[in-house]
């Protein structure tokens, strides 16, 4: 205590100066001097805003997970808008921007929590199930291309049969010529990065670098979603077809997110296919 008093005595001049200076600055920045008052406010805002910015930079790193989730949701909405531009029954169906047109496809964002790609029969698991409205035989698309079809559904999870599974089959079309083909993954000849398209007529003009897309015919996927790029063409003389090797758009070794495709008219398509 005595030391404190001594200290105050020693620096009393300076302390008194500070006291009066504080007083006068208080007057200076009071609301009576509008210029200094607002300048004080704004300069203090510079300090606070830079602090806030610093804090934001710090904590935005930790909230990347939430930001990613938000972006995912936004992507779903955008995909809903983008891929519903045309009512996809056939590829060349009339495109309509009328209000009459019906939204055929809805998308639900999911996370791929397990992805196999080295096995004979590969499967993916996503974190959405019956509770989220996922049903059997729904499509799953990734951010670049298609991923697979829902095979099994539990309450909270779903198993996906991906492209890279020998039991996977899908009608695809060549983007430039609209020729139909069948997508087949042969475990002995393909790895997780490529896939075969067969049954394309031999006269079709397919070039390296062309794309194959979904047809939308089976109602699993919207039309026009890329599957892969042509990297190899072989002629099958016996069957007069082309065996085409595609490089998958989606990289199954690093798949993280996807969108379950809900087709509102799936039942109708099923009925028509069965009647035939």
């Amino acid at each position, binding site marked *: 205590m005595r030391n404190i008093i001594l200290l105050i005595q020693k620096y009393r*001049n*300076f302390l*008194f*100066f500070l006291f009066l*200076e504080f007083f*006068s600055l208080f*007057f*200076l920045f009071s609301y009576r001097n509008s210029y200094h008052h607002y*300048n004080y406010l704004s300069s203090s805002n510079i300090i606070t805003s830079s602090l806030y910015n610093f804090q934001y930079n710090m904590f935005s790193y930790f909230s990347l997970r939430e930001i990613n989730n938000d972006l995912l949701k936004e992507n779903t909405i955008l995909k809903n808008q983008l891929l519903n531009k045309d009512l996809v029954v056939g590829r060349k169906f009339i495109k309509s921007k009328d209000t009459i047109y019906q939204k055929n496809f809805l998308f639900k964002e999911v996370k791929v929590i397990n992805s196999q790609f080295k096995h004979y029969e590969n499967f993916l698991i996503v974190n959405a199930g019956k509770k989220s409205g996922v049903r059997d035989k729904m499509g799953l698309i990734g951010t670049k291309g298609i991923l697979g079809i829902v095979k099994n559904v539990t309450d909270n999870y779903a198993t996906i049969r991906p492209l890279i599974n020998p039991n996977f089959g899908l009608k695809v079309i060549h983007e430039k010529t609209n020729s139909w083909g069948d997508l087949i993954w042969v475990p002995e000849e393909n790895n997780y990065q490529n896939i075969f398209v067969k049954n394309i007529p031999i006269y079709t003009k397919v070039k390296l670098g062309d794309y194959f897309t979904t047809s939308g015919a089976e109602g699993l996927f919207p039309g026009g979603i890329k599957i892969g790029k042509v990297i190899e063409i072989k002629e099958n003389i016996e069957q007069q077809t082309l065996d085409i090797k595609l490089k998958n758009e989606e990289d199954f070794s690093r798949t993280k997110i996807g969108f379950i495709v809900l087709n509102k008219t799936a039942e109708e398509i099923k009925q028509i296919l069965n009647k035939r």
Partner: protein
Amino acid sequence: MIFEFRNIAWFIGLILVQIFFIDFLDFGIYSSYFSPIIICFFILKMKLDTTVINLLIYAFFLGFITDIFRNTLGLNTSVLLIITFLKPTFLYSISSKEDIEKDVELNMFTIGLVRYLLFFGISIFLYHLIFFIMEQFSFNNLPILFFRAFINTMSALVFLIFLQYLFIFKK
């Protein structure tokens, strides 16, 4: 007693001259270069044995009253307090402690013209510089501020010499 009276007279006189004469001078567009502030002379001329606390109190009231009239509440007060606090530093930077007698008022007759120009010059220049920076409240146009402070210091020094010839009697 006479001393006290003289101080009070200087106190009131400087404020009156500052507010009713110098602030009313009009040089058109050059007015900002000729608006010296001379009230700090009251603090600077105080005897060396005046305690700092007394000086600070004088400075506070001197600045406060000037501010009320000049409509710059707190501006002159804060600058004057800084100058008051730093006064010994300025003084001893131009002369040793033994050179100046403790119980003599500081003016051009007691400390000589050269020291007067140095000591009062540095102090008043700093006063103006801090004043202008605080008034503008930013460091923009710093060269112009230096120039303004310099010109104002010159005019203040000349004006103070004039005042001292009028009101301080040589012994």
